């Protein structure tokens, strides 16, 4: 999954460098709240550990072997911020010293494996292992599932990066200038190997490591367990929700920007819009300009209360957008509060049992 130079266009690499920088910046900022002098050796040694784990040749079912990434155990022991930095350092050394992964694609590799991988691993581990004791069997399962999901999420993002190349970067004759396969080929080609081998390797090493640590050194699992004090390195108290509320409010206020976009989003047409769009396309033929029977049948299956984000009783289109955003956020809040209260209840039952 280490993308070498030449597979991605410079502009894609640039965008992914910016994405990676955002991840690095927020991780460093968070870790600086802890003693920096403590963090530097910890991250460095863990980066070296991740590097060595990547060299393990793991036997997999079916007689084949695979290499793990080590991102899951880093996320479990260090938390997402520490894991992002440790993996990024390991990937940087691999690219600069061992030629594994490119220089221009280092941002992409860090974004896919270190950032997406760490966040998916941490979130899924915490979700599955929520409320479980440090030595609970559920933590082993959670680590294995988190490893499997993290590697596949990273692979999926990489596949999308590959798949958009021929669409965006080709010459006048249609020759792809970078990775040559479109999404419909890139995604299955990438995912088959990761769903069957690489994901299993990460699942095996993560589950096995957590099982070993539960017996030999369970203290290493405590930091992110949520059992005692919380976890992520650098997070000394529960995160404040104020910033999240401010961001949601800003995004809600920005929703009327959607009105500026001309036309309808590709593939989100009503039957009438589809006929218009396909008929006006240069390669239109009679088959393409007719509405498929299935679409015609199912288009009236559900009528939205706020069609096109414009409630019928509101005259102003901008206000309609804003109202729709408030309604959507409100609905999500109700669902999440209900889920939270249900989870608290079931956790209470588990601890009293």
């Amino acid at each position, binding site marked *: 999954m280490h993308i*070498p*130079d*030449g*597979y991605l*266009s*410079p502009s894609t*690499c640039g965008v992914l460098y910016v994405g990676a920088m955002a991840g690095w910046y927020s991780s*460093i900022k968070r870790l600086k709240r802890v*003693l*920096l*002098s403590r963090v*530097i*050796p*910890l*991250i*460095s*040694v*863990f980066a*070296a*550990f991740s*590097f*060595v*784990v990547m*060299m*393990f*040749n*793991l*036997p*997999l079912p079916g007689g084949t*072997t695979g290499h793990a990434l080590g991102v899951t*155990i880093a996320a479990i*022991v260090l938390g997402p911020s520490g894991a992002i930095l440790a993996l990024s*350092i390991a990937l*940087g*050394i691999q*690219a*600069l*010293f*061992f*030629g594994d992964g*490119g220089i*221009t694609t280092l941002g992409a590799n860090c974004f896919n494996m270190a950032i997406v991988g760490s966040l998916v691993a941490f979130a899924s581990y915490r979700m599955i292992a929520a409320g479980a004791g440090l030595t609970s069997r559920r933590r082993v399962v959670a680590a294995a599932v988190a490893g499997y999901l993290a590697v596949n999420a990273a692979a999926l993002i990489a596949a999308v990066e590959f798949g958009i190349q021929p669409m965006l970067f080709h010459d006048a*004759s*249609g*020759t*792809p*200038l*970078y990775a*040559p396969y479109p999404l419909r*080929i890139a995604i299955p080609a990438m995912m088959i190997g990761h769903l069957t081998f690489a994901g299993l390797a990460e699942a*095996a*090493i993560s*589950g*096995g*490591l957590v099982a*070993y*640590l539960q017996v*030999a*050194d369970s203290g*290493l699992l405590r930091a992110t367990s949520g059992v005692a004090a919380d976890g992520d390195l650098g997070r000394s108290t529960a995160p404040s929700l104020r910033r999240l509320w401010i961001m949601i409010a800003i995004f809600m206020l920005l929703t009327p920007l959607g009105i500026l976009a001309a036309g309808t989003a590709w593939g989100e047409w009503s039957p009438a819009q589809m006929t218009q769009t396909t008929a006006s396309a240069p390669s239109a033929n009679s088959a393409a300009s007719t509405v498929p029977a299935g679409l015609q049948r199912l288009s009236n299956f559900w009528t939205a209360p706020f069609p096109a984000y414009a409630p019928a009783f509101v005259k102003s289109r901008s206000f309609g957008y804003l109202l729709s955003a408030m309604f959507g956020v409100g609905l999500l809040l109700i669902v999440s509060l209900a889920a939270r209260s249900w989870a608290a209840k079931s956790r209470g039952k588990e601890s009293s049992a």
Partner: protein
Amino acid sequence: MSRSFLESTTLGFGRALTRAMLSEETARERGLLQSLDPRVRVLGLFALVLAVTLSHKLVVVAALLAMSVVMAVLSRVTLFTLAKRVWLIVLGFTGVIALPALFLTPGRPVAALGGLVITSQGLHTAALLILRVETAVTLTTLLVLCTPWAHVLKALRALRLPKEAIVMMAMTYRYLFLLVETANQMFESRRSRTVGVLRPEEQRRVAARTAGVLLSKSFALSNDVYMAMQSRGFRGDVQVLSHWRLTMWDWVGLLSFLFAGSLAVWMGR
């Protein structure tokens, strides 16, 4: 089966250590790239890698590959080393990925192989991908082979990489070899105690336990390093020594790299 698993992992460790040693040896040779300031080498070779990815024409990328081969020869890097370490591996990996593009890329048919039609666009995109990856990896490998790791890190500092990142990379590199050596010894000792064939589940357990021991050791090591840093008065402020000065020869080198890169981008657009 058990031997192959333990052996293949120890062999991998051995290969990594050998490659690192070879790099340190080549970096001490007297050659073209070695004669330039490390900052010029890093900046110049990165600029050429960028030029490779920006060029859209086969002939321009091929010219950059030829240029990197000449640089390799003048820097006392043997073509055998490059072929073994870069060209064959890249050809095997990227070649397999690029091959189906010959048939799957829509375009003007130029040949048929059985029932499959090779298109002109497919040929061009596959060749461009392989050549571009070969050239970029050759340039990166040249940097690694001709520059000691400590100098690469110091040069990265000149590119405004945060000091903390440089220190972490330096520490990681140092402890990487210690951990590789420790893991190698653990696998060796497990191998010497293994009689018969281990079942795959047992092999996975061995790998996980070894990684677990390594993790505990890493954590203990990081505590030791922290204490050592504290006892030497480290307060989180990183100091990097830098006393390099660019000579006329370095400026000529840097301008040549930048000129070649810009020309390649302009001609390959």
